[in-house]
């Protein structure tokens, strides 16, 4: 199963409501994925020369204040979530303190954990968040263990995040090819392979839409993918399309989810164009 949701705001007046809108959307997808949940929030774009690091530690009492001081970063807490802002290139310094970095970027922040989606959202105080784009996932684990690292979204490159409903069948061979090209994997999860493939293609000059075309040719399996970068929001489906996808296009936003009920509370949804994308289609919206 698994449930995916995404909201890409076109009207900046809705930005203060991003957190409450995506919270309502993801909560509706709880029974498609009760094992773990996660969400990427795009907003608070940092100044040039700075980077946000979304961090996580297994130690609930971890001393984030002293880590932030040691690394020369600003610390922002969102419930149990931690975002450090500092100069680029601090990854190994942060990770040397037994901390996992789950996303980096100028706009993206990722929060994920095991447990019921509603409690995960509360843990990271998602409802109050302001932003222009959100991408979320509720997981029913199939390909790898129920761990926070195996939860979605996968953010493997700056500002990229990927959520996935389905599974890939040839991901081990694609993973070997990407490892030979220098990509380093952190989990056994198939979606991480998809994210690294997209990130690798985009770091070699492709935009998200073209990177997704490469993915459709490279990865075999059944999937609905929702991906975002700082300015792009994209939905891709496999050639058989047995995994659900519903898209709503409105003057004020583009929204996507596994089922319509996640879209039902969006503002003015009755005026949106609601449809299911066709097999092999790639839809990309750019801010």
């Amino acid at each position, binding site marked *: 199963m698994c449930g995916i949701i995404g909201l890409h705001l076109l009207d900046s007046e809705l930005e203060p409501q991003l957190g409450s809108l995506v919270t309502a959307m993801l909560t509706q997808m709880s029974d498609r994925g009760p094992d773990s949940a996660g969400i990427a929030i795009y907003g608070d774009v940092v100044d040039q020369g700075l980077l946000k690091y979304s961090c996580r530690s297994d130690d609930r009492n971890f001393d984030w204040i002293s880590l932030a001081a040691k690394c020369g970063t600003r610390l922002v807490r969102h419930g149990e979530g931690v975002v450090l802002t500092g100069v680029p290139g601090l990854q190994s310094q942060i990770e040397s303190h037994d901390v996992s970095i789950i996303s980096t970027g100028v706009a993206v922040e990722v929060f994920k954990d095991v447990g019921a989606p509603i409690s995960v959202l509360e843990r990271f105080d998602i409802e109050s968040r302001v932003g222009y784009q959100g991408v979320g996932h509720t997981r029913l684990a199939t390909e790898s263990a129920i761990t926070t690292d195996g939860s979605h979204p996968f953010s493997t490159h700056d500002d990229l995040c990927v959520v996935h409903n389905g599974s890939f069948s040839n991901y081990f061979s694609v993973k070997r090819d990407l490892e030979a090209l220098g990509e380093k994997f952190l989990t056994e999860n198939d979606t991480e392979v998809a994210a690294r493939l997209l990130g690798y293609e985009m770091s070699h000059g492709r935009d998200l839409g073209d990177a997704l075309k490469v993915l459709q040719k490279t990865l075999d399996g059944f999937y609905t993918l929702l991906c975002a970068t700082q300015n792009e929001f994209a939905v891709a489906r496999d050639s058989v*399309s047995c995994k*659900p996808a*519903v898209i709503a296009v409105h003057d004020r936003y583009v929204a996507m989810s596994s*089922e*319509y*009920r*996640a*879209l*039902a*509370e969006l503002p003015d*949804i*009755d005026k949106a*164009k*609601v*449809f*299911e994308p*066709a*097999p092999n289609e790639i839809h990309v919206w750019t801010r």
Partner: protein
Amino acid sequence: MTPTVFDCETSTVREINVALRALPSGSSATILNPKGRHNLAVGMIKDLNITFEGSVGHYVGGLCDGINIKVNGFCGWAAGENLMNGTIRVTGNASERVGATAHGGTIVVEGDASTRAGISLKGGSIAIAGDIGDFAMFMAQAGILLVGGNVGEALGDSLYEAVIYVAGTVKSLGADARYEDITESDVSKIVALCETAGFTHIDPNNVKRIASAKQLYNFNSLKEQKY
């Protein structure tokens, strides 16, 4: 008679379905705030008139016999799955597998329909005003699909006796489907279905007929066969 009103905000799907089944034949009901809930009005076996004020989830009107349903919005997977008789009308777009395995009745979509429309249709009629996706009418055994717009890949793969009419373009036909000349009898069926559906944008004389070439389809129950 004023319709009985149900609200999905205050009642569960099961409560609504049980209450609908308890209504006398010929009753009308309006359902507010369906908000994409699944399995609404499933298994109704009498002539009820049910209107959904908003979009519904999967399987609306499935397994019904004699129902008259109107959805003012979008519908999820398999609207009217296994419909035996009655009508289902969706004013917005339809998701996958609209009318899957339906035995009878009429399903009308005023917008577009996604993939696998009419898969394994066993009778009745499906009328789609707009476009439809890939793999429509896969292994459809009997009944009619009428499409006012364009059709995706692999239309009518492994068809049996069902017939497809398309006013727009077809990307590709599936295995064993072929174009055939349109007959007087086809035109009268299209005219009747357009009238039922309220479609005025289809020229009944300018429609493609697609049916089985019967190269894959060679069951013969009279012949001595071992299965």
